[in-house]
């Protein structure tokens, strides 16, 4: 077979392109130079500074509170939505699908400004609670899509059999649906959690005084702060995400 080398060359170039900034960032987090143009010696000073940065730890706390609560609620709502979308082929579900699907494609800034207008219009004070509501809103769609994907090879006759044998709905949900769907629900939850932790644009629009999340803190550091501190913070985040994904991947393989 005659095959061109060009696609391979492009692929190698793209992978280099993907890793260059990440690599430079990690290296610079150990660089004594402030802007990393030249190597001025190995240092852990930036990590030490980071460790004593109280505002960062406060924002990490806020981020985790929001991520955990938003994931919990969006998993419930997203999973029921996926069940409805998979089980019923009605007019209602066509609109339902559209409503779930659209938030995935529209730019984040539009969801951010829309929610800000809504909260201002009904007089909800901006803060952690409004960020939580916003995060649940976009997480529902992602959870629903992931669970819906897993439902494609789910056999509903099991549920019908249980219902025919006299089980009530809560029993069916608790004893059959949730155990069988758990791989889909867990990957949906992981996705929601990651997206919530990383969200900047929507959070920035609906945040109020005292509700600074980690991405909002990072943004203000980029705008006004010290670059090496962000390098160090990013490297830690990279290691944490890497470990989290590794663990969840292992967990997922065991499930299957």
């Amino acid at each position, binding site marked *: 077979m005659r*095959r061109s080398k060009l696609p391979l060359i*492009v692929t190698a170039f*793209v992978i280099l392109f993907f890793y260059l900034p990440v690599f430079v960032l990690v290296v610079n987090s150990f660089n004594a130079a402030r802007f990393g143009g030249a190597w001025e010696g190995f240092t852990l000073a930036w990590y030490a500074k980071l460790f004593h940065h109280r505002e960062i730890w406060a924002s990490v706390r806020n981020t985790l509170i929001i991520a955990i609560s938003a994931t919990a609620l969006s998993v419930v709502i997203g999973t029921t939505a996926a*069940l409805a979308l998979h089980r019923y082929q009605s007019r209602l579900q066509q609109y339902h699908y559209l409503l779930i699907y659209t938030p995935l494609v*529209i*730019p984040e800034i539009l969801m951010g400004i829309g929610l800000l207008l809504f909260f201002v219009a009904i007089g909800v004070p901006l803060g952690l609670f409004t960020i939580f509501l916003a995060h649940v809103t976009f997480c529902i769609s992602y959870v629903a899509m992931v669970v819906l994907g897993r439902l494609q090879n789910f056999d509903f006759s099991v549920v019908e059999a249980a219902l025919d044998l006299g089980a009530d709905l809560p029993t069916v949900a608790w004893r059959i649906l949730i155990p069988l769907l758990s791989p889909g629900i867990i990957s949906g939850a992981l996705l929601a959690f990651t997206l919530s932790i990383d969200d900047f644009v929507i959070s920035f629009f609906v945040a109020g005084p005292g509700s600074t999340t980690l991405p909002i803190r990072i943004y203000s550091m*980029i705008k006004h702060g010290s670059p090496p501190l962000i390098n160090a913070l990013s490297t830690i985040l990279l290691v944490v995400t890497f470990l989290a994904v590794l663990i969840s991947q292992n967990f997922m393989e065991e499930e299957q």
Partner: protein
Amino acid sequence: MKASTGKANEWFLSLPSLMWLLILFLLPTLLIFAITFKPPDQFGGFAPGWTLHTVESLAQPNYPAIIWRTIYLSILTTVVCILMATPVGYVIARSRGKWRQILLLLVIVPFWTSFLVRIFAWKVLLHPDGAIKQALLACHIVSTDTSLLYNSGSVLLVMVYNFLPFAILPIYAAAAKFDFRLVEAAQDLGAHKFQSFMRVFIPGIWRGLITAVLMVFIPALGSYVIPDIVGGPSGEMIGNKIAQRVFVDRNLPHASGLSAFLTVAVLIPMTLVMVMQKRKQKAEPLIEEDA
């Protein structure tokens, strides 16, 4: 009896997400249009009554330039992403077993970093004291006063970097389902390499290509953080103007007016594609769920 309990179950399952998204997604989106016609008040909210003042002030002379820049940067980003992603998707789909897993992982891993951190990494790289400028200076490709940062070029570069995986994944997903024997058949029948690629492979993955275009073009139109961090005044897009109206002069009706415009700009390609998809193939989800 059975039918009515079925209907009740359907509502029971649909109501939570339906209500949540109607109130916290659809209603806020409609509010964007409504508040465009509200006068602002001095506390950063909006006053009662209706006005056309915002709509008139949107005809400001500097807006057309920014709107034009937003559109051409988004189109350019999409074109570059598709041109780079198609060979990559092709290579990943043609590789076997372990290699395919490794390549996919190589594409995804850098994007486990935070979105802001990735943009920041480019700011550091492109900075006058950063690695790229120093390397280019050493090779005498640029002079000391060339700026790699704060122009449309740096915005384009970082947008391509950020959106490229969203083009690669759907193209790969479509290419993985493509029957490569068709390409071999075309070549056996005398088509040369490029011909068989363009006339057999590309039409074979058109669904993936369209998804890729949407996944890049629509978020690109709404870019705000990328031009904000690496763009500077000469790289501003509509998103920056919306944010300035919200965070700098707190004029929510004005921000709404710009957002309403952006919403319409986003809905046009979305509906176009939906209509096209409906015509080509009936009611199949646009996104590959396993991508």
